């Protein structure tokens, strides 16, 4: 089943690479004095690469939003209130217990429903809440002169940075869970392959 058009796959791979660069360089800045540790790069280099990757990520995000606005792909992110919580619980129960008992997938992948309720919810949170916040707060840190000086006596820069690193952290956790759940396809590698070829592969095809 052909599910992922070229623009989504290209956007996705660019986003994935940028996420890795941004996480490694972001952690490096935060823990800069531990520069002997694995994956920690020098502060100056980290700043340069973080800024560079962030600008591309922002452009890539605009492409993502525009793509979702002007193609049918945007519909995949529509969350309906009806059965929202119960659908989430059903999917969670499936991951926690059902799949170990050999139960059927409660929300099988179709062309009109690429994401299960848990995927949809986490993707909306990541792409429409966390990423915009991380971009806006990142712009505030890149140009500190435009950042609000103080909010109720607390430095605007501190609040901006805390928002930035908190969102960055949640996106890092999201990425770890995202990568792991992508091993839950018919074979551990089939969903990864699908994101490269565009075809959602299942065993009976």
């Amino acid at each position: 089943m052909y599910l992922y058009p070229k623009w989504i796959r290209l956007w996705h791979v660019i986003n994935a690479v940028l996420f890795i660069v941004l996480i490694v360089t972001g952690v490096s800045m935060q823990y800069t004095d531990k520069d002997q540790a694995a994956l920690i790069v020098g502060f100056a280099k980290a700043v340069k690469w973080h800024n560079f990757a962030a600008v591309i990520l922002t452009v890539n995000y605009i492409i993502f939003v525009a793509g979702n606005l002007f193609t049918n792909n945007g519909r995949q992110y529509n969350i309906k209130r009806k059965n929202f919580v119960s659908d989430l619980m059903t999917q969670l129960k499936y991951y926690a217990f059902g799949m170990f008992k050999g139960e059927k997938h409660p929300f099988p992948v179709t062309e009109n429903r690429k994401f299960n309720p848990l995927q949809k919810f986490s993707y909306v949170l990541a792409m429409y809440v966390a990423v915009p916040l991380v971009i806006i707060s990142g712009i505030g840190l890149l140009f500190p002169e435009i950042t609000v000086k103080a909010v109720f006596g607390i430095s605007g820069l501190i609040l901006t940075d805390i928002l930035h690193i908190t969102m960055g952290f949640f996106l890092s956790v999201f990425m770890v869970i995202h990568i792991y759940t992508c091993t839950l396809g018919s074979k551990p590698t089939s969903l990864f392959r699908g994101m490269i070829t565009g075809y959602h592969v299942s065993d009976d095809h």
Partner: protein
Amino acid sequence: MKLNTARIALLAGAVLLNVSAASGHFRFRSDTTAVQDTTKYVSPYAEQNESCLKCHGQARYEYTNESLGRQVKAMMCSERIVRRDEYYNSNHKSFSCTDCHSFEYEKFPHPGELRMEQKLNCLDCHGGDETYARYHFEAIDTAYRESVHFKLEEEGFSCWKCHDPHSYKINIRNNENLREAIRYDNAICLKCHSNYDQFQLLSDREEINILNTHSWLPNQASHFASVRCLECHTKVDERMPVAHLIQTKDKAVKLCNECHSQNSILMASLYKFQSKEQRRDGFFNGVIMNESYVIGANRNEYLNNLSLLIFLGTLGVIGVHVFFRLKKKVTHKSDKEE
């Protein structure tokens, strides 16, 4: 290219703004208007000093030319002006002019040979005196003698080039407004390093554009407004209140994590006088956050621990899931049953 030019213009504007904001202390432009005297301090020598300040207290002065038999108005050389407002707010505010200058100055016109008057330096008064022992003037002198400025002594460099005896006041340890203190201290350096007319008095070097020489610094304007030149250009000495060993540029701090780290050198320099407040609400080097935010130095211990906990928790849940998948040999059935 255009962006770069615009950026330089913006930074130049920011620096000029800083200089002009600090111009209450250092006036780079000739200023012909008298400064409003706002100080509340009343010097015991105020009346006596006024005999000097009536001419030297502002740009314009008047005297009686006895040969011409009339009053003459003239402009005072900017280097000979001592503004009352600055003087009576300075460290030396309780002095009479003739504590440091010859009594001969009481004569007018001043005798010509007074121009060759030997000027006192800091140690002439402050050296070997127990009253000032806690300021470690001798250690400051030793550091100064090792600094790049000392070799300019033959060209006329002295303590006064930075610490104008008529206006200098202890700043960083007393000023509650750190930004203002930073501007004040940086204006001392910029007085020569951003003014080629002054710079040429001491050096034959070509004009240095500090915006260009610091172009490698990310968020340059932010750095210039948030830290003193001294932070990177001096060797910290725990003994003295403010480091005086100004080093050559190749020894200046250039590694970001000297400041952007948990063991930030800012705590031994800029925040030395407030550094007792090491942590605030879980933030390392919390005192820095009173005025600024330094990535890497101001990480929050609680948030760090919480994030580690969440991350390990996530990995733990994934580990347990993988364990049961392997144990039960689960294959995903979603697609089979489509």
